[in-house]
């Protein structure tokens, strides 16, 4: 009887939000589990040599683990399961090119942004010069991205086709299934640099919106959120943030992109 009662309480306990602090759990376990993309270069992707996940998001995650003085464990994620991983407690935080929106803020807490980008387009050269030309076009996007939401809401005359990932969307463009694809500008420039037939395409000369990427945290974990924010501020102050950025987007990379955002610019 006692055991049944204990089990029932345990079940209830698991089903209701536990008040225990995630930060204490992380320290006790000695491991920070971070959900990071494994298919989204250069934010989170499989390194060709080490066969481990690396990228800009991972470098930020490393800094947070170091600050906590715990080991870093990366959990590969994709847009379909990053929230379930967080909610089911299989990851402590999400560092996966996670764009902040007000609607999303209802479900997760965000740290201060550590990256900013704008929604841009790749199209055949000369075919897309200004946003007005988007009407009537078929535009390919990645599933799970805010670019999809923005286009659907602000450009109802545009047909949005969502593919599983960027390579498929780009193939759709090369095959003529769509006339343009939309992504973070930071991703598109690198994508184009990789393409064997890059002279046929260009990044359209306009940016639709400014987007901010931040760490996603479970709701109500104020101590953990505060610590993550502190870490991000310190990264900027020590110059480490610039180093991380330059490693992925600096002048020596395949697709250089000037840094126009400092951590702390956005609250």
């Amino acid at each position: 009887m006692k055991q049944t009662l204990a089990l029932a309480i345990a079940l209830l306990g698991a089903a209701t939000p536990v008040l225990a602090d995630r930060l204490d759990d992380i320290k006790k376990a000695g491991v920070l589990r971070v959900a990071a993309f494994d298919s989204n270069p250069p934010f989170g992707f499989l390194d060709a040599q080490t066969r481990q996940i690396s990228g800009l998001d991972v470098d930020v995650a490393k800094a947070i683990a170091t600050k906590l003085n715990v080991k870093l464990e990366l959990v590969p994620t994709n847009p379909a399961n990053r929230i379930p991983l967080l909610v089911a407690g299989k990851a402590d935080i999400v560092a996966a090119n996670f764009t902040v929106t007000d609607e999303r803020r209802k479900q997760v807490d965000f740290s201060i942004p550590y990256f900013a980008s704008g929604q841009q387009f790749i199209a055949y050269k000369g075919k897309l010069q200004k946003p007005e030309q988007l009407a009537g076009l078929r535009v390919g996007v990645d599933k799970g991205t805010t670019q999809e939401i923005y286009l659907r809401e602000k450009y109802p005359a545009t047909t949005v086709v969502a593919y599983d990932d960027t390579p498929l969307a780009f193939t759709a463009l090369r095959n003529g299934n769509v006339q343009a694809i939309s992504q973070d500008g930071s991703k598109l420039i690198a994508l184009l640099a990789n393409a064997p037939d890059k002279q046929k395409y260009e990044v359209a000369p306009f940016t639709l919106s400014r987007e901010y990427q931040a760490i996603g945290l479970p709701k109500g974990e104020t101590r953990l959120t505060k610590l993550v924010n502190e870490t991000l501020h310190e990264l900027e102050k020590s110059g480490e943030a610039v180093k991380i950025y330059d490693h992925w987007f600096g002048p020596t990379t395949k697709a250089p992109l000037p840094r126009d955002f400092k951590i702390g610019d956005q609250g």
Partner: protein
Amino acid sequence: MTPPAWLGQNWLAPHYLIWLLKGALLAAWLALLVCIAATLLGTLLTALQASHQRAIRIPTDTFLSLHRNTPLMVQLLLWYFGVSGLLPDDAKQWLNTPHVLALPAGLSLAWPSFEFLAAFTALTLYSASFIAGELRAGLRGVSDNQRAAAQALGLTPWQTFRWIVLPQALVIVRRPLVGQYTAVIKNTSLTMTIGVAELSYSSRQVETETLLAFQAFAVATVLYLALVLLLQISGRKPVPAWRPAP
């Protein structure tokens, strides 16, 4: 009423439910078309496979083997990207722009999107290959003695097939066939890879917008369940199964 905390702060707003319902309708429509086409094609393939001519049988076997033994996702990608890569630019352009035929009384008939066409083609060929497998198994399940007996009675091969083999084979094959149709419904979910806005696609859209992953996927699961149960109930046979007396 607010949901338990782990479900997030909200239930799904009504307009998201409508997205999901629309997705379910498209999935059901695609599945229906595929089931019809795949059954016809599957029957044809079964007949070709039974041919005594090697020149017919071997290509048929190869076709079946290629389609059954590779993932549907790969086949979808090849039909969508591979075929559109081969088409001349004009045809490609035509297929990728919407065409609506206005009918009298305010009705209109839209030419399906290229995504839908590619999905239909790939799913039909894939499903037909499995249906052919079930039909063949059903024919095999009728023992050779039955054929011999029928022919001894003076029935022609066609009469034997029509009156002796086919009725028994249909009994064996009915349940597996419903199983294949079930698989078609569930397989429509893979067409989201090539941008068909069916149920899984819309559940991902809802998730992207709201981050209410569990709710979106739960509604999708229930809708798939409903579609399949609808099929299984309508596929019930009128005669109860025979079983050995206890």
